[in-house]
């Protein structure tokens, strides 16, 4: 009786299916704390507005920053913020990896017959994370309305693609940087400076960072493909760095590369996992 697996379907539960299942369970557990949830969602809403207010304050003094007007910068802000907010909602469970490893709970992840990544990404999922979506959506709406652009099908497609690829890029970044907890269990903040830092840095025209850093953010840590490059096309701006035209459409490739690296990093870290205590 113990050895029979008579069901014809012997395949393990598919990763994304496991992810959704666990998300549902976490949401149910979180719903027990409704008031706290509401307060935290409001706080999230408020926090996301802060960077927006900073941009508005800056533009109250000048008309352009690095050659970009307010609607243009808000477009950059809206796209990167939206992509990040969605990725944060779905993938920031990886921030808890350090605690899981430290408490020995990551072992429990590894004995389950589902993808370890799915389990970690779903960890402590709360609906409060969706509070971060409101500000960027509204901002993007306003910016698109205020931009003196003629919206062709191509432009719209690239704009939508910007957010989608940005989302994928950020998810890959969450996983890739989250792996640092496997190496140094105290270093979660370093990972945060890459994820939150990238988001912060891409809210503004990338040219404010100067040429060497700007190129590094294009070819070394490819956050330029989150919104900057494709937005140069959408906004009809010339590239201040003078990079070739085809890079405007290279976001999907950048996303694919980063995903590959993330998957590789994750698998390697699992293989070398040391497990604390007995």
């Amino acid at each position, binding site marked *: 009786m113990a050895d029979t697996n008579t069901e014809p379907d012997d395949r393990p539960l598919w990763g994304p299916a496991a992810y959704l299942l666990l998300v549902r369970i976490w949401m149910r557990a979180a719903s027990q704390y409704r008031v706290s949830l509401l307060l935290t969602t409001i706080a999230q809403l408020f926090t996301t507005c802060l960077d927006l207010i900073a941009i508005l304050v800056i533009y109250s003094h000048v008309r352009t920053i690095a050659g970009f007007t307010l609607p243009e910068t808000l477009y950059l802000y809206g796209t990167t913020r939206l992509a990040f907010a969605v990725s944060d909602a779905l993938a920031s469970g990886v921030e808890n990896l350090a605690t899981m490893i430290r408490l020995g709970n990551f072992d429990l992840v590894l*004995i389950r*017959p589902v993808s370890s990544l799915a389990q970690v990404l779903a960890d402590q999922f709360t609906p409060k994370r969706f509070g971060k979506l409101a500000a960027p959506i509204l901002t993007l709406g306003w910016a698109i309305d205020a931009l003196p652009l003629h919206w062709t099908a191509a432009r719209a497609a690239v704009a939508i693609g910007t957010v989608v690829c940005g989302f994928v890029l950020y998810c890959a970044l969450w996983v890739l940087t989250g792996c640092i907890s496997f190496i140094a269990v105290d270093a979660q903040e370093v990972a945060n400076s890459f994820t939150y830092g990238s988001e912060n840095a891409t809210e503004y025209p990338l040219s404010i960072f100067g040429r060497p850093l700007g190129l590094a953010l294009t070819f070394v840590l490819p956050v330029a493909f989150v919104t900057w490059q494709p937005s140069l096309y959408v906004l009809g701006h010339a590239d201040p760095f003078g990079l070739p035209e085809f890079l405007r459409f290279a976001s999907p490739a950048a996303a694919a590369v980063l995903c590959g690296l993330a998957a590789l990093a994750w698998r390697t870290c699992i293989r070398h996992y040391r*497990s604390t205590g*007995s």
Partner: protein
Amino acid sequence: MTTTPTTDPIILAEGLTKTFGSGAGRFRRRRTTDGDFTAVDGIDLRIAPGELVGYIGPNGAGKSTTIKMLTGILTPTSGLLRVAGFEPQRDRVRLARRIGVVFGQRTTLWWDLPLKDSFTLLQRLYRIPPARFAENLAYYTAALDLGEFLDRPVRRLSLGQRMRGDITAALLHDPAVVYLDEPTIGLDVVSKHAVREFLSDLNQRTGTTILLTTHDIADIERLCSRVVAIDHGRVTYDGSIGDLRADRDLETVVRELYLGRSLVDTTE
């Protein structure tokens, strides 16, 4: 005298070794004082299906490391390892459906959820056919007397209740192999007895292979026909209980094992 099973072993280890390098250790707060630390040093193990084996040794001997390699948590540094035909680390997900694990020190259940919700979640994760799941759940609810606290969140269960929940959780998917890491630790005498009887019954009734790590002599005495002892990463004894104790009492023998005194038929 090491008994060699005549059927294909369900757990097979040859020259299994795990060495922890000090490279990554540099970043961790717990420093490794020596350079490389060999937790498990070339152990051989053959466990046939249906055996109930006790795995004993002093703390730091390498028991947990072995179990972690068997369950796919750790990657062996070298040596051969097969469990139920799978290579544990590489085929982790597929192996996980064939094994169950019970940790005495911590729960595998979801803290904030009622016990039965944990079980339902496990049913989905392990893809247990609904009919089978209902049957198993009913059986274990009766056998382990879970009825009165099925609705209670795991965080509000007593140690004994939680342990019964953990055991159920490990068995709902009819695993071929079950690992129990100190399952009776902290339990009162009555509960310990209940758990032992249950495990013995499980093994006899279903032929589930059980590997039991314990410090409790009574556990070994009651349950295990075979004992594997490990110290400093090496097997110091592998054989039947009867041969082990000869005409001495089990407690004396185990103490000698723990102290590292070699026995007649082992080599160091």
